[in-house]
């Protein structure tokens, strides 16, 4: 009996495994392109970059092991690292809340059951589709340069002579924050879907009880929307930390004027590809990974105090 069990079970297990593999093979085959891409183009380079971050590597020669020297320099002797940190955090702190607020306001306006909703939704989503392109860089320069449209409007309306917003180190970053807010399409669509989920009878009951629109917003809409707010906040924060193209195209890769738009990712890119310090850039990249992981974990840990789920 004991031997019978001993041999029968593994056999059966093997057959079952083969059967399961056979059943799942088409699935794996469909998955293969993505899986190959993930393993070769994402996981592989990620692991290699961790190793590279402990080396001196100029892309052309061979990597030379230097231990923690890159990390030590970043922490102790790299002025530009702190400049880029400051720029990036300021950007995240400003862009994320403003963008989410704006997206929510537009979503609520669109949720009023107005006619032609799909058209409006498409129009409002358009800036997000344009992304960060050279056309946007040109548009932004024409809007916010010294003789740009914004200053012409200011002069016409108030007789004010504004500075060249996009090329003045005191204001350049804010024009990029505005660019980010302008691309509010994807959080808006998600907010809109969330708003649709809120049962209308709640509002009807609240109106009967005498609650005004403001009270309804803070007592019904916002609490019921917190899961969506949470999702949008996490996604947008990660996006903002990773922001690269807007600064790259508006400052043509320099982070100027006077490093005022030197995003962390832009600095990383410069170190890697302009100054050929791939090892150092890899160390910078891993610090960014840790920072983003920290903020994401922080969001999830605090979520239980302010995110309300129905169940």
């Amino acid at each position, binding site marked *: 009996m004991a031997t019978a069990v001993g041999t029968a079970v593994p056999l059966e297990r093997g057959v079952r495994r083969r059967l399961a593999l056979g059943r799942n093979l088409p699935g794996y085959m469909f998955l293969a392109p993505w899986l190959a891409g993930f393993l070769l183009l994402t996981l592989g380079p990620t692991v290699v970059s961790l190793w590279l971050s402990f080396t001196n590597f100029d892309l052309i020669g061979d990597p030379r092991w230097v231990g923690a020297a890159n990390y030590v320099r970043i922490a102790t002797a790299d002025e530009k690292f702190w400049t880029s940190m400051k720029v990036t955090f300021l950007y995240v702190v400003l862009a994320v809340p403003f963008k989410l607020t704006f997206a929510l306001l537009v979503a609520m306006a669109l949720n009023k059951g107005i006619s032609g909703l799909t058209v409006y939704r498409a129009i409002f989503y358009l800036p997000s589709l344009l992304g960060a392109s050279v056309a946007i860089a040109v548009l932004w*320069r024409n809007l916010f340069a010294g*003789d740009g449209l914004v200053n012409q409007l200011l002069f016409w309306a108030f007789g004010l002579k504004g500075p060249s917003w996009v090329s003045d180190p005191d204001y350049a970053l804010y024009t990029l924050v505005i660019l980010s807010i302008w691309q509010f399409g994807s959080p808006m669509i998600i907010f809109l879907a969330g708003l649709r989920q809120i049962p209308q009878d709640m509002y009807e009951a609240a109106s009967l009880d005498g609650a005004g629109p403001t009270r309804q917003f803070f007592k019904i809409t916002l609490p019921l929307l917190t899961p969506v707010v949470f999702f949008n906040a996490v996604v947008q924060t990660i996006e903002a930390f990773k922001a690269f193209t807007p600064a790259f195209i508006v400052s043509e890769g320099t982070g*100027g004027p006077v490093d005022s738009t030197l995003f962390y990712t832009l600095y990383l890119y*410069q170190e890697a590809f302009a100054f050929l310090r791939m090892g150092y850039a890899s160390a910078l990249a891993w610090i960014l990974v840790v920072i983003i992981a920290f903020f994401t974990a922080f969001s999830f840990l605090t979520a239980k105090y302010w995110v309300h789920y129905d169940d």
Partner: protein
Amino acid sequence: MSEIRITRRAALAGAGSAAMLALSSRLALAQEKRLRMFWWGSKERADRTYKANELYTARNASTKIDGETLGWTDYWPRVATQAAGRNLADVLQMDYRYIFEYARRGALMPLDQFMGKALDIADFGAPSIDCGKVDGKLYGINLGNNSVAMLTNVSAFEAAGLKAPKTGIDWKEFSALCGELTKAAKKDGFYGSMDAGGLEPNLETWLRQRGKGLYSDEGQVAFSADDMGEWFAMWDAMRKAKACVPADVQALDKQNIETNPLTLGKAAVAFAHSNQLVGYQAVNPNKLAIDMYPTIGAGGKPGQYLKPSMLFSIAANSKNAEEAAKIINFYVKDPEGVKAVGVERGVPASPAARNVVAADLDELGKAMVNYIGMISDKIGPLPAPPPKGAGEIAFLLKKTNEEVGFGKATAAEAGKKFHADALAIIARG
């Protein structure tokens, strides 16, 4: 189970036919030589390069040349990644700044073996050949000589009743003249000159006029903190006198032809390279004059020099190196190739090629060739190639000049900081 077997068989059949396809296309390719060529530059350059390649392949039917082109800023990251992947184009455009780095790390092929055979460039003369040598071996073929140049919108000066700045003017006179133009033109947002305090070639020329330079032959910083303080102060004074554009206008200049204050109609003078005259004139409605940079006056040394505007190199990993050398030779020596390229990459180093292009030069081309001829007795020797970190220092110069321009630092502070930072960058390598 049967479903699975069909899937497997289908997959096998699919894989088989894909392999057959790959094989047959391989066979078709076997007879022809396929080469890649990679360069940076404007559309004008791309048009001329594709034309030259077409002429070459028309004559050599078994050769195919795949051209790729990018702007200067995007070009170098791509070359670096391709070098890392041992996947450089067979023929690639090199700059004097980078040829040492790539040659010394074994990314480029020594070309001495082709001299006198595929490469018939002995008539270049020693200086124009040696500028492509690294540690005694030839790694780059000079595609044309150029020098820095001052481009002037003459009619803007004439309209204001002033004489435009010409070769021989010194920096003091230049600055006063530009200030007068701004005043006389009375156009809102229009100034005498661009602000070139953040441009490396301008600084280098000025330092050489003072008997110094950017870097010594040993690759060390060759200027002092005081030099830099004076440099930043000179441009700060020009900004304050409205002789050049203010900092927030200059910051919109992405150091290319399209965004230069001269092109945008915000200044009457741009500092550029002689071969860019064609590009600048193409986007400027007013006729541009080409002159030398201002000098420091009596007792000054020659600041400018002739340099290879760019070189062609062959990748160490090239499988068709001999064919690549023949293509390069077509660009610099063959009358057909030379004509197609013209003087857009600079004035050809070979006298024979110069005669070929001279025959059908337009007015602009003539102005450029005359300029190179005119300056030849007013220039100094080619400096040693810049050390590692020079590219980063060029970034730093732009940033530091902006700091002074936006009032974040005084010229003297900026001079000290720039000098110290440059030393640190060189030390780091």
